C-alpha cells in the first residue's frame, strides 16, 4: 500500500499541520512516511502546499506529482490541485470554501463541508481535522484509530485541552463521507 496525497489551502488553514499529523499518525501505525512542504517566499494568505506519502514499503520520491488523493481547502488552490491528481484518483474538496466545480471528469470528487462541521464543534480552525477524518475514511491509508494517544505525543502539554475537539472534528469528517 502506498498513498500519495497532495494538500493545498491558504496559509493559516492548517495545511501543514494536517500533513504533519497525517504522517505522524501513519508512522505510529507502523508505516513508512514522508512529508514535504513546498517552502518558498510565502506570505500570509498565500497558498500553502504539502506532499505527503504513507506506505507499507520504502518511499521513493518525496515529491507527489501523480497523487492518489488530493485535498483542496480553498477556492484558489483548486486549479493546482486538479492538476496534481492522477487519473482515477480522488479529489476531496472543502465545499464551504470551494464553490467552483472541478473540470476533470476522470477523477472522483468528494465534497466535505469542513468549515461548517468545524464550526458546529466550536471553531472553524478545526476544518483541517475534519478534512483529515474524511481523508482517512476515503483512502483507508491511515486509520486514526488511536488518534488520542497520537495527539498526546504530538502536542505539548499546554495544548492538550484542545485534544477532545480535534478528535470530534476527525470523527465528524469520517462520518461526512
Amino acid at each position, binding site marked *: 500500500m502506498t498513498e500519495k496525497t497532495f494538500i493545498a489551502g491558504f496559509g493559516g488553514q492548517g495545511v501543514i499541520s494536517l500533513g504533519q499529523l497525517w504522517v505522524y499518525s501513519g508512522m505510529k501505525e507502523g508505516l513508512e512516511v*514522508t512529508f514535504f512542504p513546498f517552502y518558498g517566499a510565502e506570505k500570509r494568505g498565500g497558498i500553502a502546499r504539502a506532499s505527503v506519502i504513507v506506505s507499507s514499503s520504502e518511499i521513493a520520491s518525496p515529491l507527489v506529482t501523480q497523487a492518489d488523493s488530493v485535498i483542496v481547502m480553498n477556492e484558489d488552490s483548486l486549479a493546482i490541485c486538479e492538476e496534481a491528481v492522477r487519473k482515477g484518483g480522488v479529489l476531496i474538496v472543502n465545499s464551504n470554501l470551494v464553490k467552483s466545480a472541478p473540470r476533470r471528469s476522470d477523477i472522483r470528487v468528494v465534497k466535505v463541508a469542513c468549515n461548517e462541521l468545524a464550526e458546529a464543534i466550536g471553531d472553524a480552525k478545526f476544518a483541517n481535522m475534519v478534512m483529515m477524518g474524511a481523508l482517512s475514511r476515503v483512502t483507508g491509508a491511515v486509520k486514526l484509530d488511536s488518534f488520542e494517544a497520537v495527539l498526546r505525543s504530538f502536542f505539548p502539554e499546554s495544548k492538550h485541552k484542545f485534544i477532545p475537539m480535534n478528535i470530534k472534528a476527525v470523527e465528524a469528517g469520517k462520518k461526512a463521507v
Partner: protein
Amino acid sequence: MAEEKRLMKGNEAIGEAAIRAGCRAYFGYPITPQNELTAYMARHMLDLKRTFIQAESEVSAINMVFGAASTGARSMTSSSSPGISLKQEGISYACGADVPCVIVNVARSGPGLGGISPSQGDYFQSTRGGGHGDYYTFVLAPKSVQEAADLTYLAFDLADKWRVPVLILADGLIGQMMEGVVFPKERDPSSLPAKPWATGNQYKTHRPINHVTSLNLMPLELEAQNNRRFERYAEIAKSEVRYEEMNVDKAELILVAYGSSSRISLGAIQAAKALGIELGLFRPISLWPFPAKRMAELAAKGKRFLVVEMSKGQMVEDVRLAVNGKSPVDFYGRCGGVIPTEEEVLAEARRVLGK
C-alpha cells in the same frame, strides 16, 4: 530499549545527530533552507552547556569552527550554497592545518544568490576542494532524514579519524522534509578519540607547544606536508568508499544518482518494472571518495548508465571518468530549483533504451 522513532525535519535530525555525536561547538549564520538546523542547535546546545554562537557572517562562523576544532573540540557549522561559498577560505585553511570539523550544506539553487529551492549544483565545489590549494574534503550525501542523521553522526568520527573536514551535502528537499528517524546513541565524551596534536590545556600537561596552522613558508616542507595529506587521501579512497546499489545485475540501464535525485530515480525504477523494463540504481553515498572502482566494474560488464542530477551535469563527469569510455553514459538533469519528477526520469530512461 530501542530508541523511539521520531518524526523530524532533515535539518533538525542533522542537529540532533551532531549533538549525539559529541558536537561540542556549533557556529552558524542564518540562510534558507537550513535555518531549522541553526535554530535546533540554538535551542539545545546551551541547555547542554555546550557552545552555540550565531556568528556575524559565514566567514566568521567557519573561522570559529577552525578555532574550536584546533583545541580538539568536535565542531560544526552549516549553511546553504551561497553561504558555503563564503566559507571556502576557512575550509581550505582547515584542510591545510589538518583540522577535523563537520560542515553541512543544505544546498539551494544557484549560481549567485539563485533561489531557495533544492538543487545539486554544488557537486563540483564539494568534491574538487572548493577553495584554493591542493586538497579534498570528505563528502557524504544523504538520501533521507534517517540517513542525514546517520551520516552526520558518522561524519564526526571520520573527521577525527582522518583529520579532515567532512562535508555533508544535502539539499533543500532533504532539509525540509519530515520522515521517521531513529537516532544512534549519545556518545560518551570520554570515549572520543584523544587529539595529542590539539592546542590548549598546556597548563595542565606542560607539554611542548602544538602549532595548528596551514602556513609554511618552506616549499620543501610544505610539499612534504601536502604529500603526507595525499597519502591519507589515498588510504581514504581505499577504505572509505560508500555506495548503495539495487537491481544492477538484471538492469538494462543503471540510473546513477545521489541524495534527492536517487529517491526520484527509485520511483522511476519502480514504475519501469510495472512496464516490464528492468532499471537499476547506483547511488554514491560518499561523493568523495567517489565509488569509481565499482562503476568501472559495472561498465566492464557492459552496463550502460543514465546519470540523474538536479544540475546541468556535474557528477556525470566522475561517472564518465570511472567508466572511461567502456560503456555509454547519458545524462538527465533539471536545475534552478526544479525537482525532476519520476515520470520525467522514466521517460528519459525509455528514450535512452528506445523502449
